[in-house]
């Protein structure tokens, strides 16, 4: 098998592969610190049993689904009280219930969202309408 203009083709290929993999070269050897969501808000610290609406594993992977369900139940079905698996009831509200405990949006929500490559403050676009808690900065 003979490649016509093999020199140019191979040089071109090498340049292409180099350019295509620039993100990897650019970030090589640089460790991105893993997200560190903080749970040290005053409300959480005062809780005897530090338990969220769902168990940790479920809320961590499924909070977006939960928020979606809450939105449907509250806005469209007019149901505003959530009954957790342990029978405890919560007012279904991102702005009020979630953020009453997690009053540290920048230290909690944003930590993972930014790490996951979501644009801070724009995706997910909860906060264009819902009011983020005032944080002491």
């Amino acid at each position: 098998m003979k490649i016509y203009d093999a020199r140019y083709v191979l040089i071109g290929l090498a340049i292409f592969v180099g350019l295509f993999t620039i993100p990897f070269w650019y970030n090589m050897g640089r460790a991105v610190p893993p997200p560190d969501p903080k749970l040290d808000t005053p409300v959480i610290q005062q809780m005897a049993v530090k338990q969220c609406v769902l168990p940790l594993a479920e809320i961590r992977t499924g909070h977006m689904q939960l928020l979606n369900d809450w939105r449907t139940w509250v806005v469209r079905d007019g149901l505003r009280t959530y009954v957790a698996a342990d029978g405890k009831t919560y007012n279904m509200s991102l702005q009020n219930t979630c953020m009453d405990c997690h009053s540290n949006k920048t230290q909690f929500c944003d930590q993972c969202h930014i790490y996951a490559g979501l644009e801070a403050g724009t995706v997910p676009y909860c906060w264009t309408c819902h009011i983020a808690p005032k944080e002491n900065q």
Partner: protein
Amino acid sequence: METSRRNFLKISGVCALGLTALPVADVFGESDLPKAIKNPQALTGQHWAMVVDMKKCWEKGKEGCKDCILACHAVHNVPDIGSIKEEIKWIWTNHYENVFPGQENEYNVKNLEGRPFIALCNHCTNPPCVRVCPTQATFKRPEDGIVMMDFHRCIGCRYCMAGCPYGARSFNWRDPRPFIKTELNMRFPTRERGVVEKCNFCAERLAEGLLPACVEACKVGALSFGDLADPNSVVRKLLASHFTMRRKPELGTQPNVYYIV
């Protein structure tokens, strides 16, 4: 491997039966707790309505009183843009000839000159805004008749504004946050640029057992709120004892805001 047609069908049958096992297990495996329920302290009604007693408002209220408007707009973080073209309003005042067009004559117009009429979303029984909304962002709650907005779904096409014959809907031409002149109510969201908004009959307050903010704010009791399906409700009593008017009845929208004039 060879198999007879008979065996193949047997195995298929057993497999099909197996497929039904998962949904059955799901049903029995779920906890019997309901996941979402109505707030126990919520005010419940089947057909919310409002009666606006304009006589009380004019005779007992102070000249230029705007308590109901201010209360509503503060509770719901309604911005004050400052231009009539981009005005955002949930409850407002207007002249008689604009609120009840077609019912004016040269004498009553003169009598009612300078008299403000309170206007708000009528939460129509037959709401044109709901019919025209392409995303069902605005919808009529089947349980109590409130015409609600789901701001998450609104795409800002403004068909509902064209559909509403009462001008009850406002469009956010720009980010409303910098224009909220009142102290921000941290318990209620704002809106964002590109969505339509209007009065929600204080659905969020009813869910907590509170009357609408405008009704609560009116010191002379000119606004009454209640359930039309309940013959003993305040509104039914007022409707039974007074002559009342509704806005543009000829359109067949069946408004649920009644006026005593």
